[in-house]
């Protein structure tokens, strides 16, 4: 039961100013509540890591949490642009951010390399693409056996990884399913892992090959029902597509965005969570 914490305690204790933090979840199981707690606790100078920044990083970037962004696809899925991300890159508002831009495949390779304790990952990629020209973290190596030219990307080993999952048991073992994305990879890549869950159960009763993170690799488990909304938790609630569509309008204008964040994130009470 040792790793059960409230969300605000988990963020306060384990995430520090200037840290590299990954919040993962491929459209599914995005840890929105945790991102909001990071915003409320005014964590700054963070290196934010996510394959798809999504609305959660749009909010964190717009609220000034980010120094650097590591990503591979920065749109509002099914809708269009992430306006706060664009404002930061195009007009340096609220301040300039550095970007380390890879492809989806390269991000997954960077995570699996870190999870496997390797300094870099190797893949067949970026030949003919301009990305390698602008990103010093994409390099080419020759295969020592065949001579084939392959791309290499450094491992991404965040200080903290945060994911959402369906459930945990009282010992803090975590079980997730559906579109599992890179939840397991990023959890094993990071130095510390915070998992928010929909519910705490007595017995996970997970099938043999289920995606389970044993308690001893999870730093903190926080009970946060609804913690992935407006993304979704398979078996619990659907993706709120109307939120993503409405976000386009809210986020387009700086003041409108700040007012929304004040009313819906800053001035709200954090979820109780915990044991």
């Amino acid at each position, binding site marked *: 039961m040792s790793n059960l914490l409230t969300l605000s305690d988990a963020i306060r204790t384990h995430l520090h100013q200037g840290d590299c933090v990954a919040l993962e979840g*491929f459209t599914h199981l995005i840890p929105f509540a945790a991102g909001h707690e990071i915003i409320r606790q005014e964590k700054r100078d963070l290196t934010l890591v996510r394959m798809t920044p999504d609305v959660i990083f749009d909010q964190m970037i717009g609220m000034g949490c980010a120094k650097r962004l590591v990503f591979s696809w920065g749109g509002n899925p099914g809708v269009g642009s992430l306006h706060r991300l*664009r404002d930061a890159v195009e007009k340096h508002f609220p301040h300039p951010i550095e970007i380390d831009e890879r492809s989806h495949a390269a991000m997954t390779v960077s995570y699996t390399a870190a999870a496997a304790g390797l300094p870099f990952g190797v893949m067949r*990629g970026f030949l*003919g693409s301009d990305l390698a020209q*602008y990103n010093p973290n994409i390099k080419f190596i020759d295969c020592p056996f065949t001579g084939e030219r392959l791309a290499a990307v450094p491992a991404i080993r965040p200080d903290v990884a945060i994911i959402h999952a369906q459930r945990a048991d009282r010992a803090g073992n975590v079980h997730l399913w559906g579109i599992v*994305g890179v939840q397991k990879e990023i959890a094993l890549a990071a130095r510390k892992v915070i998992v928010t869950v929909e519910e705490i159960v007595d017995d996970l009763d997970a099938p043999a090959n289920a995606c389970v993170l044993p308690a001893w690799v999870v730093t903190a488990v926080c009970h946060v029902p*609804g913690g992935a909304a*407006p993304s979704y938790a398979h078996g619990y609630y659907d993706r709120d597509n109307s939120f993503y569509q409405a976000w386009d309008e809210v986020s387009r204008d700086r003041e409108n965005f700040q007012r929304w964040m004040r*009313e819906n994130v800053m001035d709200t009470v954090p979820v109780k969570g915990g044991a």
Partner: protein
Amino acid sequence: MMSRKQSGFPSDESFSSDEKRGDAMVATPSEVMTVVAARMLQERTVCFVGIGIPSKAANLARLTHAPQAVLIYESGTIGTRPSVLPLSIGDGELALTADTVVSTSEIFSYWLQGGRVELGFLGAAQVDRYANLNSTVIGNYQSPKVRLPGAGGAPEIAAQAKETLIIINHDRRKLVEKVDFITSAGYLDGGDSRERAGLKTGGPTAVITDLCVLRPEFQTRELVVTQLHPGVTRQTVAEATGWDVRFAEDLTQTQVPSDLELSTLRELERQTALAHSNDAAGKTSLTRNNPTAEVTRP
């Protein structure tokens, strides 16, 4: 081949508005584009699908002539058969109707890089004369005029699928002489430059627009117009293309979408709109969906 039904051809005028819905069985330009793309997906093909029009076309193919096509989305869903089109690449519908759901790292390593994908269906913000794709920036990379979403899975799909199809709306800002940024390699500078760069797969075999189909010419690899959609003139295509586009000697005419193709497409869109408006029912207020407030488990 079915004979061409003259009555099915809309006038030039009816093609002027993208959004305009045609009469009962007269296709809009956007519908023609989707149908033409769908026809290129053959039965049993293993196809890696991007969101948007590629996804619409791939599912139309599956619901008409290619029921056993295998659709793979980068969210890790393999052999998915969504009853409505997903709004995002990771919609639950894709997982619920898939043969299997694997991790994102597995989909890119074992399935795409492993050479198991025959066809990649891609969109982009820009495509150039040699079928290179840009989905990264308009303008300069370091200080872009427009920051686009970025690569996603496209560079590896373009490099590792045995062949790719590109779907894009036809206008001068999208079909350009040279893309501002090569996100995903097509034929690079033309000729054998793709092969010389070390790319081993076939590359783009067609660019399907709402006006026509362009294909890479045999040796130069330059995109030339090979097929005009109903009611579209050479002049319209030339004016909407950002380079001095050439037309194939054996230029053909797109076969008008059949009633079955059109009615299937429209029904798919209707069901999709219905499903997504149900999603939204009772959840239209942003504040009521405040994710940090105490949320009762549905």
